[in-house]
């Protein structure tokens, strides 16, 4: 590192950085990429990327047509989670609705439902869960079971008034950090990380590939500008832009989606500063192995896809197989996702994020060194 910084001239770096800012400001395609794309992504993705369940369509096949079966149906219908789209006494139509994918759940109440309840205090119902909806299916199922159990408990209390008081265990549930179970509070910080990553990596890779294509890079390579100066000048403007994008995204998140900021914003920006060095250095490294902008876009896209999917951004890392979890330790995006959620959603401080932040710092130094080594003013 020290060797790389020898003879570093701030003036040279600033002259190039200034030109870089002018490129960005004057090129409409880059501006669109930096401003429009991130905002559209944030707005659409925050709304689209949700596994939340509300008014999920269900079908009730009621073969019993009794007071009890109707009570169960009413319970389901009254809940916010479900919307009754069909009610019949035979399974034919229900099955078709299921095959068409119109319903997420079919509840079949057998003809002896009430009789059995009265006679044996136990009755059986059938739940057909449409699992093509993925993880939503588990949640839908658990909501339905909860409603049925609640009904049973109530019925029990009604039929058999408590005779002797025996001790009971009462569970009280608390949802920390996201009491309204709002998916946006989870997704927005993640999307912001994705945006900062894409801006940092893609723009850097593309920018240098473009200079290669146009021949201006060769012109710079015959000047006395040093590697460190060139890289500092290239990275500085995008580093700033990444932070600006983050700030804009946080504001949109706060004002449009009501995502609160529980932690210290300065800590977040500090961590983002460290993270951006990693993202930019990866972009720089990509630009050294490609010849054209198109290749830069493809390689970046490919790498980012792997990084983002393995970051726990959309789905929890804990659900992934063990080896994927281990591999994801090498993924800088994962660590910044952890940091961003810890600070924004949980209000964590420096002590709580020390580990991922430390890993990012190490990562930054390593990748930057590799990229600088790889970047050669002279071809072999």
């Amino acid at each position, binding site marked *: 590192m020290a060797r790389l910084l020898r003879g570093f001239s701030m003036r040279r770096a600033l002259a190039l950085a200034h030109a870089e800012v002018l490129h960005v400001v004057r090129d409409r395609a880059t501006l669109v990429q930096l401003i429009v794309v991130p905002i*559209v992504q944030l707005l659409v993705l925050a709304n689209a990327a949700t596994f939340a369940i509300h008014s999920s369509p269900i079908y009730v096949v009621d073969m019993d047509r009794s007071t009890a079966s109707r009570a169960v149906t009413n319970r389901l219908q009254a809940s916010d989670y479900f919307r009754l789209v069909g009610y019949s006494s035979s399974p034919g139509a229900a099955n078709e609705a299921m095959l068409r994918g119109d319903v997420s759940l079919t509840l079949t109440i057998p003809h002896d439902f009430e009789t059995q309840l009265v006679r044996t205090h136990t009755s059986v119902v059938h739940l057909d869960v449409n699992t093509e909806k993925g*993880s939503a299916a588990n949640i839908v199922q658990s909501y339905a079971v909860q409603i049925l159990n609640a009904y049973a408990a109530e019925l029990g209390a009604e039929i058999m008034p408590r005779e002797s*008081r025996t001790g*009971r265990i009462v569970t009280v549930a608390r949802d920390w950090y996201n009491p309204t179970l709002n998916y946006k509070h*989870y997704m927005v910080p993640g999307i912001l990380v994705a945006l900062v990553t894409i801006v940092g990596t893609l723009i850097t890779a593309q920018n240098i590939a473009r200079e290669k294509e146009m021949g201006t890079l060769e012109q710079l390579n015959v000047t006395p500008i040093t590697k460190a100066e060139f890289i500092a000048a290239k990275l500085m403007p995008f580093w700033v832009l990444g932070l600006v994008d983050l700030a804009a995204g946080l504001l949109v998140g706060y004002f449009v989606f009501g995502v609160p900021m529980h932690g210290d914003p300065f800590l977040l920006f500090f961590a983002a500063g460290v993270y951006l060095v990693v993202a930019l250095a990866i972009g720089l490294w990509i630009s050294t192995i490609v010849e054209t902008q*198109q*290749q830069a876009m493809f390689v970046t896209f490919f790498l980012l896809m792997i990084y983002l999917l393995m970051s726990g951004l959309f789905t929890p890392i*804990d659900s992934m197989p063990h080896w994927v979890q281990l591999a994801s330790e090498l993924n800088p995006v994962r660590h910044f996702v952890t940091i961003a959620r810890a600070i924004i959603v949980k209000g964590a401080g420096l*002590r709580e994020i020390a580990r991922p932040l430390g890993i990012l710092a190490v990562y930054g130094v390593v990748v930057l060194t590799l990229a600088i080594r790889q970047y050669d003013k002279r071809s072999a």
Partner: protein
Amino acid sequence: MNALLGLLRKETLHILRDRRTLAVLILLPIVQVVLFGYTIRTDVKDVRLAIVDPTPDATTLGIRARFSATGTFRTVAVLHSASQLERLFQRDTAQVAIVFGPQFGETLARGDAAQVLVITDATEPNSGTGRQNYVNAVVQEYAAQLAPRRGDIRIETRVRSRFNPTRQSSNLFVPGLMAMVLTIVSALMTALSLTREKETGTMEALLASPLRPWQIIIGKVAPYVVIGFLSVIAVLVEARLIFHVPMRGSLTLLLFEGLLFILVSLSLGILISARTSSQRVAMMAAMLATMLPTLMLSGFVFPIESMPRALQLVSYIIPARWFVQVTRGIMLKGTGLAFLWPETLILGLMAVVLLVASARSFRIRLD
């Protein structure tokens, strides 16, 4: 016809010579299947549990033993007071905490209600709810065993998972993945390759040649149709071998629907190239107009029903939405055209409209 063959040859050579792009094209579907297969999962497992037990006694120890016995929970901390919990959650060391009330066993023995507080990290609401339900079930089971109450009313639920009994997410994303791969190969690559010819000026040379416009289009896009088809087959084979994704319906029908979707995507690619002049702009337009909607609004990863009404409406005009529905129908449900004709019709209409529009946009450029 010879001219057309020459063009086809040229296009194939372009693709074969650009090694880096070719590598991405080949690796993309293969890597995507593995990635999505292993990462898009939401199972509740290996839950990190913190226990706050101010006065351990036989009952609390009994409940704690229950949790260890499930195999789903891993106890990361046993504390005497709740004050340390916040930090554990912020560090992501714990995901769930159970907090026993003081003198838990005594309270229970007195015949009073003893309280267990279940704190969940609900940052990700669904996993949070899932873990919470699991904890509740364990506690209630213990309670039921502790004091069986005669005459309790029970409604037993017999659950049947339709279409995906093992609830493997890989079964669900493979159809979406095919839409994704086809969008990248057909829409994006077509748009880029046509714009590149414009940028380098070779398009004018082609237009000045005796080739008819439709021949130029076919020459340019045919290789990508082939690559698209090969990718689909690669995805299917891999999904079968690694994740045992079923194929319950007709493969022929699936490939036919794939062809419809390829036509739709290709037309979109041609339309984009007609309206853009540089590869960078084409790339961005293709991302915004085809790839992002396919990823986000097709129901591939995120269920459409969970989206706001406005986005649900938007999803109707997204071809991938219908294609995903069709492929899931064929692969998971084994349904045929009897059920899938509306989606097929919509895809067909889209293909016709977009093909006409793209042919026209190409002709306009000629004049």
